[in-house]
């Protein structure tokens, strides 16, 4: 092993050697330079080990250079700021960063879980489907808990998130995904036509792998050219550039999601108020996929050892960070591109040898390598790797395509391997929304074929690997192409290499990893084929190949190659698994954006909301509204408060905030006829100035809403709906007018929020209102029950409805919302001498239940007809058609044994039937018992001093007086007598007081 420092004396385009940065990794302080990634800095410190694999806990090091990394997954931050599973290759270091390795115990170096590796022979793909079945109860109590212990990679954070997230929408004529040479050129070309161009790149710096690409453009090296173009783009007004922003998904109609890491790389940015992540919702006319290509690993025995990396990653470590993985390397390749890595290593003073599976490569780079005296083994493969937590040597064997096993091999010392199995166009975005792809033999990979959306792929993402052709392709986005003079090395053909054979019998003991993170080997894929899991989707699901956090970025094609060799089918015949968003994982925080805590679903507030809150109200969500449920005073329980409020209404007077009730103005010559279609009962006969209670059904014949509608003028009504139904009914009326009865001349305007509306209810209600100085007569004679008036209470403009949901004399007073709080206060003050108090929704519910009034949603549940709840009289027989009428004729709806609404009085008046309790035909020792109906509302009535309930019971109305049984939890059986539903003031005199 070399003792040479891993940080080279010079070089590193991304780092600033004058700025030292210190961070911790597994509790150990490590220094790097500004611009380092966690990967480069840790490697520079001499540590090769970054993590442990999922299944066998094998020691793993870096493989990639960027988001394709599958091994070096790291947890960042502590406590509530901890984030698991981040790629070391993408983490930009800063002072104070705290990082830790994952999926190991007690430490990364000594990991107990590594024992799995010893038993790997017994743990082939899908082994768990074949065992852990006996004895039956062991799965839940023994096997699964054991398996679950081993689940997962990183740890979840703790507690609430201290950071914020947000969404941002943007529209562009063209979105370019990827800021490499293809994307930059495409952006400039597109921008030259004056269109709005959005350019997104996942890296902190534009240029893609221009710095790792050989050649010259107009006399500049590719990286310099890219930097020049990037600078020009940055100055253009019609170009918007987002870096550290990964376009994670492409959806219908060119909708894209992009994930911006705003503050991850610098705590100072977060501290200044920026969100941690921003999710960009992008709508583009045209999408340009310039996502480049991903280098493939090679499947050779023990190819997962730390310090076996992709050739491009090694090249990038040297060029960008001045870091080398070791002092003696082997480049293992089937293509020309990896020779650039050999040159870079040689230039950095690292001893290097090339192992090339091709027998007679003839590209310029190969010739140059030989000419420069680099040791090149042609027609060879690496057949074995020595070393466990690193590489100490490799064995090199002669290779012929299709060869099964290795006969002779030679051992060569080395401390790292740079591998390259070729390049796969990054097709993910292309495929997210159904893009078709085709296999390209010369690429040994898939490339884009066709798409129904307005989307194109350019450069390496399109399978175009040369610089010159990429420029031409990208320039097609603009009007006229500038001619670039490009010099680049001539490339020889690559040859596919899906599996490098090893010594001994059929890969015994040698693990050729395909999916590194999930520990899926070539043998696993072959086993899946033998067992009949032949569809590539079956293979994937059976072996978990391609299902790790890298979603198969580097493994998919190698897997297909192995399956192809095992089955004799071509890769296109095998097919690919579906590419699913996201391209790389992104935070749930970003998806939720700002809509957390107090912004998670709006709370609707009535004009009196603050008052309720200030007066100790307990709130209840009703739709999006918060309504005051009850107002407990100092030492009161909720129950006591509710009882007090009820008795106050019954005996004195109460005030209820009913502002949430839906209110809809309906006007036009056909308004009355329209209402006759909407309600089950008739409204055309309603007199001006009068109110009528109406029932609505849906077309299925079931109750959908109810409320009081008043006739303001011959052609003008105001409808009240339930609080939850306001928006729905408003839209429902519009729908019928626009789509079915288009000849009706009716306008509908919902005005719910224009009005604050209060119920003033109780025997002293009129006394209270009289004190407010009404400018109209509110006596019972002038203003009887079910009538309507408008005028003023003092200075307050009011609409007053003499309607009641409590059974008491009641006035519903509406005033414009901004006067609501003032009028509320005035009523409170006026009511003081009469003992007025506010009451909440629960008191309201008890009050109405005492009177047997239904609540749509309590007494009905979406399967209940007006007839079921005893309101047959409100279902017109005369009107030829109204909504739901025909469905009431369906055999089941008018059939026998319908559940009918009845009242219930428990035998023991102190027994309150539980909510939703079921009555049975006969009580048995144990279930099942035949159920005959259920409680819909149940309360202890303070007015009556006993419990009351309503219930839907089979044939209930013909069972008056019958005692039925409710077997409850714990064996208690409550008995109750069936009665009618009106428990209080059956004559109804109080309403008319």
């Amino acid at each position: 092993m070399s003792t040479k420092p891993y940080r080279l004396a010079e070089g590193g385009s991304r780092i600033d050697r004058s700025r030292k940065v210190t961070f911790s990794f597994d509790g150990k302080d490590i220094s790097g330079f500004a611009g380092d990634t966690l990967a480069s800095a840790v490697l520079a410190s001499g540590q090769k080990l970054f993590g442990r694999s999922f299944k066998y806990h094998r020691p793993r090091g870096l493989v990639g250079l960027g988001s394709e990394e599958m091994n070096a997954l790291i947890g960042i931050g502590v406590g509530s700021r901890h984030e698991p599973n981040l790629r070391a290759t993408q983490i930009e270091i800063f002072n104070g960063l705290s990082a830790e390795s994952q999926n190991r115990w007690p430490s990364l170096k000594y990991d107990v879980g590594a024992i799995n590796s010893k038993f790997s022979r017994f743990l082939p793909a899908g082994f768990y489907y074949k065992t852990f079945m006996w004895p039956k109860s062991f799965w839940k109590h023994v096997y699964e808990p054991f398996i679950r212990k081993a689940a997962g990679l990183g740890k979840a954070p703790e507690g609430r998130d201290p950071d914020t997230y947000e969404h941002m929408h943007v529209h562009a004529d063209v979105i370019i995904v990827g800021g490499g040479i293809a994307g930059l050129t495409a952006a400039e070309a597109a921008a030259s036509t004056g269109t709005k161009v959005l350019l997104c790149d996942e890296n902190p710096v534009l240029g893609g792998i221009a710095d790792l690409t050989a050649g010259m453009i107009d006399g500049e090296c590719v990286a310099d050219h890219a930097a020049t173009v990037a600078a020009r783009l940055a100055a253009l007004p019609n170009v918007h550039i987002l870096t550290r922003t990964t376009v994670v998904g492409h959806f219908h109609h060119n909708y894209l999601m992009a994930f911006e890491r705003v503050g991850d790389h610098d705590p100072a940015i977060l501290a200044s108020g920026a969100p941690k992540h921003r999710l960009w919702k992008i709508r583009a006319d045209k999408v340009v996929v310039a996502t480049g290509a991903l280098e493939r690993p090679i499947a050779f025995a023990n190819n997962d050892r730390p310090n076996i990396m992709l050739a491009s990653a090694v090249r990038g470590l040297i060029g960008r960070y001045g870091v080398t993985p070791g002092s003696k390397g082997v480049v293992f390749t089937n293509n020309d591109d990896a020779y650039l890595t050999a040159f870079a290593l040689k230039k950095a003073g690292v001893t290097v040898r090339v192992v090339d599976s091709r027998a007679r490569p003839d590209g310029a780079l190969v010739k140059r390598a030989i000419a420069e005296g680099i040791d090149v083994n042609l027609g060879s493969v690496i057949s074995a790797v020595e070393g466990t937590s690193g590489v100490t040597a490799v064995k090199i064997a002669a290779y012929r395509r299709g060869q099964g096993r290795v006969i002779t091999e030679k051992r060569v010392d080395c401390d790292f391997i740079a591998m390259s199995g070729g390049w796969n166009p990054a097709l993910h975005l292309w495929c997210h929304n159904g893009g078709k792809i085709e296999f390209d033999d010369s690429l040994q990979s898939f490339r884009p074929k066709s798409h129904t959306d307005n989307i194109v792929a350019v450069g390496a993402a399109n399978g175009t690997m040369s610089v010159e052709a990429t420029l031409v392709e990208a320039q097609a986005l603009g009007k006229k192409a500038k001619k670039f003079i490009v010099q680049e090395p001539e490339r020889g053909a690559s040859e596919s290499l899906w599996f490098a054979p090893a010594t001994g019998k059929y890969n015994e003991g040698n693990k050729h990893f395909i999916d590194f993170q999930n520990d899926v080997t070539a043998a696993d894929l072959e086993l899946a084929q033998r067992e009949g899991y032949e569809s590539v989707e079956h293979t994937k699901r059976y072996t978990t190949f391609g299902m790790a956090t890298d979603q198969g970025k580097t493994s998919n094609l190698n897997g297909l190659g192995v399956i192809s060799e095992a089955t004799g089918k071509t890769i296109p015949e095998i097919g690919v698994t579906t590419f699913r968003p996201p391209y790389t994982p992104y935070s749930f925080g970003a998806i939720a954006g700002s809509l957390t805590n107090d912004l998670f679903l709006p709370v609707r507030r009535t004009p009196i909301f603050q008052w309720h809150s200030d007066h100790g109200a307990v709130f209840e969500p009703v739709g999006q509204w918060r309504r005051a449920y009850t107002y407990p005073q100092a030492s009161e329980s909720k129950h006591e408060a509710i009882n007090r409020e009820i008795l106050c209404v019954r005996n004195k007077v109460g005030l209820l905030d009913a502002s949430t009730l839906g209110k809809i103005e309906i006007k036009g010559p056909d308004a009355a006829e329209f209402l006759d279609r909407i309600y089950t009962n008739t409204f055309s006969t309603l007199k001006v100035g009068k109110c009528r209670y109406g029932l609505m059904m849906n077309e299925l014949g079931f109750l959908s809403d109810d409320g009081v509608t008043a006739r303001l003028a011959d052609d003008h009504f105001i409808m009240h709906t339930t609080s939850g139904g306001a928006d729905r009914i408003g839209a429902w009326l519009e729908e019928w007018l626009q789509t079915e009865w288009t000849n009706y001349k009716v306008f509908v305007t919902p005005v719910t929020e224009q009005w604050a509306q209060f119920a003033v209810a109780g025997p002293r209600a009129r006394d209270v209102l009289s004190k407010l100085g009404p400018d109209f007569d509110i006596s019972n004679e002038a203003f009887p029950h079910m009538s309507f008036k408008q005028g003023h209470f003092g200075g307050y403009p009011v609409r007053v409805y003499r309607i009641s949901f409590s059974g008491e004399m009641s006035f519903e007073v509406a005033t414009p919302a901004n006067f609501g709080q003032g009028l509320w206060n005035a009523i409170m003050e006026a009511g003081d001498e009469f003992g007025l108090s506010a009451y909440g929704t629960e008191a309201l519910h008890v009050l109405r239940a005492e009177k047997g009034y239904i609540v749509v949603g309590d007494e009905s549940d979406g399967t209940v007809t007006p007839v079921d709840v005893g309101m047959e009289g409100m279902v017109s027989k005369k009107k030829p058609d109204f909504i739901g009428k025909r469905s009431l004729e369906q055999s089941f709806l008018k059939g026998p044994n319908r559940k009918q609404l009845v009242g219930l009085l428990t035998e023991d008046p102190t027994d309150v039937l539980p909510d939703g309790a079921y009555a049975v035909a006969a009580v048995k020792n144990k279930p099942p018992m035949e159920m005959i109906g259920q409680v819909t509302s149940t309360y202890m009535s303070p007015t009556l001093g006993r419990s009351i309930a309503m219930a839907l019971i089979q044939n209930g109305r013909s069972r008056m007086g019958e005692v039925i049984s409710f077997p409850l939890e714990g064996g208690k059986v409550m008995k109750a007598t069936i009665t009618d539903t009106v428990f209080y003031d059956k004559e109804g005199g109080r309403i008319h007081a």
Partner: protein
Amino acid sequence: MLEPQFESALAHRAAPDTLSISMREISERGMIDLRGLATDKKFMSAVKSVLGFDLPKAPRASTSWGDLKALWLSPDQWLILCTRSKTNSLLAELNAALAKIHSLAVDVSDMRAIIRLEGESVRETLMKGSSLDLISDDYKAGTVRRMRFAEIAALLHVVEENVIDIYVFRSYAEYTWAFLTKAARKGAEVKLFKR
């Protein structure tokens, strides 16, 4: 005689000084929701006789005359803006003029809360909650658009390049205020393209 107490939805809210835009409630505005058919000449001329100008017929357009404004909401719906104190008389005039014409005019002055946003980044701030391309030419001064904003329905009126009024139902005023306060905070500015 009671002296009526007026309290708008955001009466107790003042924008914090940590915002990159300015934000305040407009409460002294009267609003009338007017329904009628744009194709009904009698209706259009009756309204003109009251307002003094033609109702805008083009989608998302607005017209103004003195302190009166008409915002297009639909082919048969407009929102008429006026000084709050004049709402009653204007409504009465409209109703008189429209007495025999199929129409519906309702005072909705209290139904919505209006928040005025001013500053260079108002459009981007709103685009954190709206999917509309508010920096495009479709949203020049005078444009009216109903939209989904964050989780609610809202109406947007572009008053000037950097001045936008957002109308939301009164019950959502607090939610809207909270959303905007978060979206517009300093440090979280987004500037799209080099506008």
